[in-house]
């Protein structure tokens, strides 16, 4: 298990190095000068030059890459061009919204998907299965931003139970969780639908295996066999999906954060791109890449834990 983890760790570090170079190059190639953007249409060329110098944009590209990448190794993500505050602090502030939101949504989608998937697999081909599968089809088809608007329309405008958006901060945890509830539901619904379908088909595959027949022959009911012997064996594809979903929930909440005007990572990167706050874009994208790679790494470890065969080198 240890050497497996080590091999995975080396590939993780390599991926990060390659990603940092790719991100830097792509962002730097995109047209649009941050200083020019900040000063707008009334500025004179010497003012733009003064600001470029102040921001360090007149330095050669290689030097800027090295200082950025080197800084990140020691946890220094640089200073935002527009906000003029350290990027690390800004990202940390935003993570306090995005991370709980992603976890909340992930928990909701898992809570919704497991019973639905188990139920559908157990009732395969019968009315209950058809109903659940129909519902998940709908859940996948509905775009989450549109579902978010429906939630706002019902719970904020008509019922007045939730505010339509914004985030009060964690000083009042209950209010904070309340503010994240509608966005988390909007994010969770399509994920839950996908997860439920994957779980169902994975379980159905497992149900055809010999060991399930043996379990049934021992006298277990269909559901007992499913629960005791099926679920664990069906977990691999489900874990893959959950891992992918977490990265998606963290990075993919951009639109939902706009709809609910939440001060999360998605909104930060959205603003940073339009303002050409290159260093923020680079650092946030790098962080998301890191999160994806890390989650993949953890998922790999989880596979190995669930399925000992994977620990051996092929």
């Amino acid at each position, binding site marked *: 298990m240890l050497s497996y983890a080590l091999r995975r760790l080396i590939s993780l570090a390599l991926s990060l190095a390659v990603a940092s170079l790719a991100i830097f190059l792509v962002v730097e190639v995109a047209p*649009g000068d941050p200083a020019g*953007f900040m000063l707008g249409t009334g*500025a004179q060329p010497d003012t733009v030059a003064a600001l470029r110098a102040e921001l360090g944009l007149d330095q050669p590209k290689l030097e800027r890459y090295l200082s950025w990448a080197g800084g990140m190794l020691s946890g220094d993500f640089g200073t935002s061009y527009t906000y003029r505050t350290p990027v690390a602090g800004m990202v940390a502030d935003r993570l306090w919204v995005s991370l709980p939101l992603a976890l909340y949504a992930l928990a909701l989608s898992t809570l919704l998907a497991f019973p639905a998937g188990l139920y559908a697999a157990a009732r395969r081909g019968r009315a209950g299965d058809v109903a659940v599968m129909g519902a998940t089809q709908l859940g996948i088809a509905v775009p989450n931003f549109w579902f978010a608007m429906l939630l706002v329309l019902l719970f*904020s*405008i008509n019922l007045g139970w939730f505010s339509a958006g914004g985030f009060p901060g964690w000083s009042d945890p209950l209010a904070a969780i309340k503010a994240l509830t509608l966005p988390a539901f909007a994010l969770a619904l399509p994920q839950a639908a996908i997860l439920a379908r994957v779980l169902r088909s994975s379980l159905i595959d497992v149900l055809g295996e010999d060991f399930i027949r043996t379990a049934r022959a021992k006298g277990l009911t269909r559901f007992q066999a499913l629960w005791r012997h099926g679920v664990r064996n069906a977990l691999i594809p489900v874990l893959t999906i959950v891992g992918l979903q977490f990265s998606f929930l963290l990075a993919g909440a951009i639109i939902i954060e706009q709809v609910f*005007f939440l001060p999360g990572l998605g909104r930060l990167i959205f603003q940073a791109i339009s303002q050409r706050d290159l260093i923020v874009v680079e650092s946030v994208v790098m962080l998301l890449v890191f999160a994806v790679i890390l989650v993949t790494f953890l998922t790999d470890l989880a596979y190995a834990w669930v399925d000992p065969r994977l620990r051996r080198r092929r």
Partner: protein
Amino acid sequence: MRSRILTPAFVLCALPAVAQETGLTLAIQLEPPHLDPTSAAAGAIDSVLYANVFEGLTRFASDGSIEPALAESWEVSEDGTTYTFALREGVTFHDGSAFDAEDVKFTLDRARGEDSTNAQKVLFEGIEEVAVVDPQTVEITLAEPDGALPFNLAWGDAVIVAPESAEDIKSAPVGTGPFVFDEWVQGDRIELARYGDYWGEAPALETATFRFISDPTAAFAAMMAGDIDVFSNFPAPENLPQFENDPRFQVIMGSSEGETILAMNNAEPPLDDVLVRQAIAHAIDREAIIDGAMYGIGTPIGTHFAPHHPDYVDLLGLSAHDQERARTLLAEAGLSEGLRLSLKLPPPPYARRGGEIVAAQLREIGIETEIVNLEWAQWLEEVFRGQDFDLTIVSHTEPMDIGIYARPDYYFQYASPAFQQIMATLKATTDPEERSELLAEAQTTIAEDYVNGYLFQLAWPTVAAAGIEGLWANQPTQANPLADVRWTE
């Protein structure tokens, strides 16, 4: 009207509104990048801070006129080159330090200095020297007479900052205004609180919260749910009738300083030919653009000047919608067929939606356009600085900016010595009547030269809860001054 289900939870939520009388939550579309109005062009900075936290020597009144602010009065020398400002007494910055002539000198020298990052440095170009006569008197010497100095000093880029605090105002603004900066939760809100030692009349509001919502649907929902009391420049014009018909809300339809134009590259063929530009001007149906792109809000303009300004001249007749005439003009220019032009569009809906309509209207007279959608940063680099375009649609939101037509290197590259002469004369003229005449002449000249297609003045719709008064309707500069805002019920 949608039915409202009254539940106990809703009733509970509605109760605190009574205690809310001295607080206000105001939404604007964009979040300020930082909080220093003197070193960025972002209008959002002024939207939050102008006349609330920061004040200048002079300031814009809601009708666009210039009134005294930190300067109580001023005198101009006989030759028009020396302005003597008498400063208000008993003014303090929010950190407790006193405001005096040294602060004015510091501010102006900082703005026009060598390494200044002031986005409107050109406002201070004519200043030769700023001298402190005594703590309450400042003397500004100009290189040549400039009747527009009090106007220039009213801009958000000219607000007074103190040497003790200027270093940190990007995150901790310290001004002299009626509200103190309290907190900025980035991405979410900025909070202001009433300043107890304000020199003027104390504002009715105790606290004000600015929120940032750019998504039109989210804006609608936040307003409807009562999360927001005021939305300045409401982003969903299609929903305005619904608010107008709802007794809980009021819609204030104001005008901005944004002349929205179909800018043309006057330096490159074929648009260097006035006949082609005139043909395009006649091809445009302004009403169709306003209806189609702006849901009917906006005032047609015939020149680059705000129609609510007293000196505006109605020149719509010069470029009336006339396809027959447009085709004749194109034929006269020898380009009746096969003309293809690029139309580069920045992100705002007026440009993206308006661009589609303009393209269709140009097709009617036989001009094909190739639409290219650009992000703002790209637009600035490619169109504005690179001058690589044929046509673009953009709203010029600076107040009184007809002077840009006197700059031959400005992106649409209009080089007319006659127009430049008019602007030079205007600058040296202080007599109001003569100034009006010169401004009329300037407007007529650019309309007759068909420099750009003049489309419409951008409207500024504000949606507010019914019980609020004292909001600015028009936007002589981008701002939401809250000193006179109050709840009436």
